[in-house]
């Protein structure tokens, strides 16, 4: 066997080992969550790597309202908040990204830098002023108190993803449309938006996932009626006082995570394509 073949083989083995290690590192917590969710309460801390004493009682407990847990309502709240945040962020972000990527104006770079700076601002520093503001105007515990701050977190991601995609779009089509009599707004709506649909779709998925997973702001600004799943799971109560119902929490976590996993698996190619837009020539 030649040296080149041996080196190629060794490289392939190293690549596979690295891939397996990364996969195990990332998926093991999720796998453990699913396994624990199927375990009987008495065997919560059993260390067997596969499900033992399998039961569906944890899922029944997670979805039940008997102990004061409202996972169903929380799922609906998360859906309302996620969809609202995504739609508004896309509406504003697409137009902003078009202006930032296709037009030259004074201070454009500064605007881009300010958006980046705003996205890196620590969210915990905003908690107290937001709490005070929403208490003053009577929005505490309302949907808008959760949606508006989350838009501010999601918007920079939306703008940056779409700017990098729209920059690569050819001007020829737009110019041809303008020559044919389209206004810039019509060219944007009728030519560019349909072409940018994959990127917009990808950005929507990323924005939705970001909003779905948000906990910090939601934990302080939501009420029992408007709390999303992240807050609902964290405040799960068991059958006894001061009891932490780990198996029910794992079941709730699985219920909440599975839709996102399915969403990402279905659209993984579009997500990767949207994230790497502009990275490869042509």
């Amino acid at each position, binding site marked *: 066997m030649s040296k080149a073949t041996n080196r190629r083989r060794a490289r392939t083995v190293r690549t596979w080992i690295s891939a397996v290690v990364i996969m195990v590192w990332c998926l093991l917590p999720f796998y453990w969550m699913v396994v624990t969710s199927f375990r009987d309460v008495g065997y919560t801390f059993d260390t067997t790597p596969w499900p033992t004493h399998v039961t569906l009682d944890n899922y029944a407990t997670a979805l039940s309202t008997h102990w004061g847990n409202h996972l169903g309502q929380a799922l609906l709240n998360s859906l309302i908040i996620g969809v609202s945040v995504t739609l508004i962020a896309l509406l504003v972000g697409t137009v902003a990204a078009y202006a930032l*990527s*296709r*037009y*030259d104006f004074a*201070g*454009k*770079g*500064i*605007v*881009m*830098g*300010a*958006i*980046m*700076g*705003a996205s*890196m*601002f620590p969210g915990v520093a905003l908690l107290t002023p937001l709490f005070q503001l929403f208490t003053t105007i009577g929005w505490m515990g309302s949907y808008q108190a959760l949606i508006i701050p989350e838009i501010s977190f999601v918007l920079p991601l939306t703008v940056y993803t779409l700017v*990098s995609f*729209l*920059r*690569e*779009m050819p*001007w020829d089509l737009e*110019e041809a449309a303008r020559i044919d009599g389209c206004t810039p707004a019509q060219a944007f709506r009728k030519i560019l938006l349909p072409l940018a649909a994959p990127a917009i779709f990808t950005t929507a998925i990323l924005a939705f996932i970001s909003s779905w997973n948000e906990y910090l702001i939601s934990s302080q600004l939501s009420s029992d009626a408007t709390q999303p799943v992240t807050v609902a799971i964290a405040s799960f109560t068991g059958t006894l006082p001061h009891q932490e119902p780990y198996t029910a929490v794992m079941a709730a976590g699985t219920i909440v995570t599975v839709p996102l996993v399915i969403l990402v698996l279905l659209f993984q190619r579009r997500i990767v394509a949207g994230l790497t837009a*502009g*990275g*490869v*020539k042509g």
Partner: protein
Amino acid sequence: MFTWKAVEVLDMGIGFFGFFTAAVFVVTVVMEVTGGQALGWALALLALVTVMAALILLRRRMLADEARGGAPVSTAWGGSHREYERRRDR
């Protein structure tokens, strides 16, 4: 493939630090007016303003070098219509 121009990167840096400079400036003024401990915030503001000044001076120098025939650093932003026209008419 889209490539960043040097001045574009500087512009974004100015915007990035400018945002935090504005935030720290507001905090410093509020702390000073309300009688709180403003020294730390003022020192942070001074550091940020120094960074901003350095970036702005560097930007001016790069543009001046380009005007004297140096490396092109300030052509129109990639993706814009001006850049498209510049490449089309080249």
